[in-house]
């Protein structure tokens, strides 16, 4: 065997791996877990952004409410009035409906 043939044989055999299904499985597992981590990080970032925006809005509202406390009280009273009105209307509807059936 000449030197070229010996080199080809030695190079060909020294590292040729067999096809390994567990290698494929390991790659897919690693890829899926990386994708899961990326999705989780993105989701955390999204919810974190929303929470920060909500907190900012809350702080702004609290500051505004401190300065305009009279308007806030009027708003609360008006909302309470509307709520009471709606509740009364619903109650009356519920009582009148069975009477109309009879």
């Amino acid at each position, binding site marked *: 065997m000449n*030197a*070229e043939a*010996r*080199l*080809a*044989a*030695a*190079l*060909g*055999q*020294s*590292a*040729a*791996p*067999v*096809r*390994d*299904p567990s*290698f*494929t*499985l*390991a*790659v*897919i597992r*690693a*890829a*899926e877990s*990386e994708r899961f981590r990326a999705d989780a990080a993105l989701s955390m970032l999204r919810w974190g952004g929303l929470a920060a925006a909500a907190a900012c809005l809350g702080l702004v509202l609290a500051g505004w409410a401190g300065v305009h406390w009279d308007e806030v009280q009027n708003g609360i009273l008006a909302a309470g009035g509307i709520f009471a009105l709606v509740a009364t209307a619903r109650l009356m509807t519920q009582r009148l409906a069975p009477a109309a059936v009879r």
Partner: protein
Amino acid sequence: MTPNDETRLIAAARKGDSRAYAALVDAHQQAVRGFLRRFAGHWADADDLAQEAFVTAWRKLGSFEGRSSFRSWVSGIGFRIARDTKRAHGRAQVRDSDWLNEQENVEGGAPVEDRIAVQRAMAELPDDQRAAVALCLGEGFSHSEAADILKMPLGTVKSHVTRGRERLLRALEPNDER
């Protein structure tokens, strides 16, 4: 696997189909692992590098333009990961004992002395030369494919392969008396 099958699988994998990607990994793992084993010079780490290369390829599949084959593209990713890892960890250790155990399990073919001599000579080649030799002489990539993978001019790759082959042949000379 025909080029059409490969294109279809790549398109499916881009949409997140992990089965399609598994088929691609299965088809090309031998070439990529073989190249990285020859380039990195030691066994277990080379498979880790190959795994990292395939995972990176999965992440970057959207940027694969199809100008080269998938096998060449992943081999290129593997080469850069291996080179950066080696730079980060300093000169890679040659694990002779592990390597010899593997060599003894190979039956028939080239004598073990030749395989050891070639492996040692490969370890002594400069990185770019070793990568070119591993691709062209070890895995049967063409010179232009190797140039694409290694991001080197074609002439440089040809010269690396020629010089690398000469050095490997010289390493076999002491065993020539057989």
